[in-house]
């Protein structure tokens, strides 16, 4: 029987213990159906998930959040639409439960109201890609709004056109004193020129590894995460519906049961509807490149990594990456 302490030296064992008891229960909330951008490839709008009647009564939001807290949620991930269009709802979450706000960064989260709320700014490549996919160079605005903010990082969605060109983007983020986490475009709307081609993901993995080595204080990532997200493989298993951990609990009828995020739900802005998963039901799980889903996939399969020292260290590094993204442990 392999035990954790038999595989790790004292330093790694301490790192393991620091994260092994975090016991995170996250869920995702569409704070609003509205957005101030309409990005090509945004799963929220391409899937039609915004076609629900948005709840506008703040009291109902507050009661809903209290119920969620009672359900055991201890990390609220706020997405949209664009959550910052409804700061009162964001505040209702923030006052009740540790919250993370995903935003395009065009509106600044006022720090006097949200002093330590984690903010993740979406970024879809360099200014050229941003203009093609999002209609504008959002970085030009978001970088001014959030420069030097110690509770903010960029969530850089790398597109196929970015292969070989990600360092200048990282450097721009270094220059404004923020951190960055990397994930890959799934191209939900099939935009021409943004499909992954043979070999590109292999090249990108090497490039992501290089960025992590070159900018360790800026890039919040791990090489094992790069491997899993670019290959779609973990411990010889392929990512897909039979493996994904980020499926809404009440809709998860997979048999035999799949290792999953306990009590995870993704709620629509009507506070009644739940969506299938952390992305959209229209996405093909076999080609899903969602970073959070792949990260969670690794995290929920802890015991499968208690096989060798390297496997367990890989698992620890991914869990630490997750914990850093939500400032559950220091950067």
């Amino acid at each position, binding site marked *: *029987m392999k035990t*954790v302490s038999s595989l790790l030296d004292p330093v790694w064992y301490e790192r393991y213990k620091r994260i*092994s*008891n975090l016991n995170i229960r996250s869920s995702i909330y569409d704070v609003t159906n509205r957005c101030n951008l309409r990005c090509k490839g945004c799963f929220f709008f391409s899937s039609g998930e915004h076609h629900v009647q948005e709840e506008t009564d703040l009291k109902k939001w507050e009661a809903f959040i209290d119920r969620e807290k009672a359900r055991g949620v201890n990390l609220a991930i706020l997405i949209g639409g664009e959550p910052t269009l409804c700061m009162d709802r964001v505040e209702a979450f923030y006052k009740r439960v540790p919250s993370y706000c995903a935003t395009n960064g065009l509106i600044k989260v006022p720090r006097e109201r949200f002093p330590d709320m984690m903010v993740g700014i979406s970024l879809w490549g360099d200014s050229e890609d941003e203009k093609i996919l999002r209609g504008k160079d959002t970085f030009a605005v978001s970088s001014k709004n959030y420069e030097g903010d110690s509770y903010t990082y960029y969530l850089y969605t790398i597109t196929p056109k970015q292969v070989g060109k990600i360092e200048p983007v990282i450097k721009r983020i270094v220059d404004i004193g923020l951190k960055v986490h990397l994930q890959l475009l799934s191209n939900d709307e099939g935009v021409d020129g943004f499909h992954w081609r043979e070999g590109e993901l292999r090249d990108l993995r090497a490039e992501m590894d290089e960025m992590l080595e070159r900018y360790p204080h800026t890039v919040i990532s791990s090489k094992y995460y790069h491997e899993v997200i670019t290959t779609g493989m973990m411990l010889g298993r392929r990512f897909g519906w039979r493996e994904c951990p980020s499926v809404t609990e009440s809709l998860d009828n997979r048999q035999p049961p799949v290792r999953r995020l306990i009590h995870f739900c993704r709620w629509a802005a009507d506070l009644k509807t739940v969506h299938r998963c952390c992305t959209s039901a229209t996405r093909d799980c076999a080609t899903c490149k969602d970073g959070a889903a792949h990260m969670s996939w690794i995290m*929920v399969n802890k*015991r499968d990594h*208690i096989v060798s020292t390297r496997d367990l260290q890989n698992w620890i590094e991914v869990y630490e990456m997750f914990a850093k993204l939500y400032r559950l442990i220091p950067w």
Partner: protein
Amino acid sequence: MPESIEKKGIVRHVAEIIIGELKLEDVIPDTFDPDMDLVDELGIDSMDLATIALVLQDEYKIIIDEDDYPRLKTVRLISAYIEEKLAAKH
């Protein structure tokens, strides 16, 4: 049956269930350290605990509250918890 033997029986049975449910290799109930921290050493998470709890609930006809999971850190602590629940039934 003397109480100590009964206690030993629960400890052994819990170890047996954990070994079976987690498919642990190279260990038998008699060699399973009842004081080993299941999270820190075996890497058990709440989904594993939920699976084990379901079996224990069936075996002992008790209810294990999810809020109590953090208490269930070792085989010995799980056994004590079961005893507590059984005593409360009588």
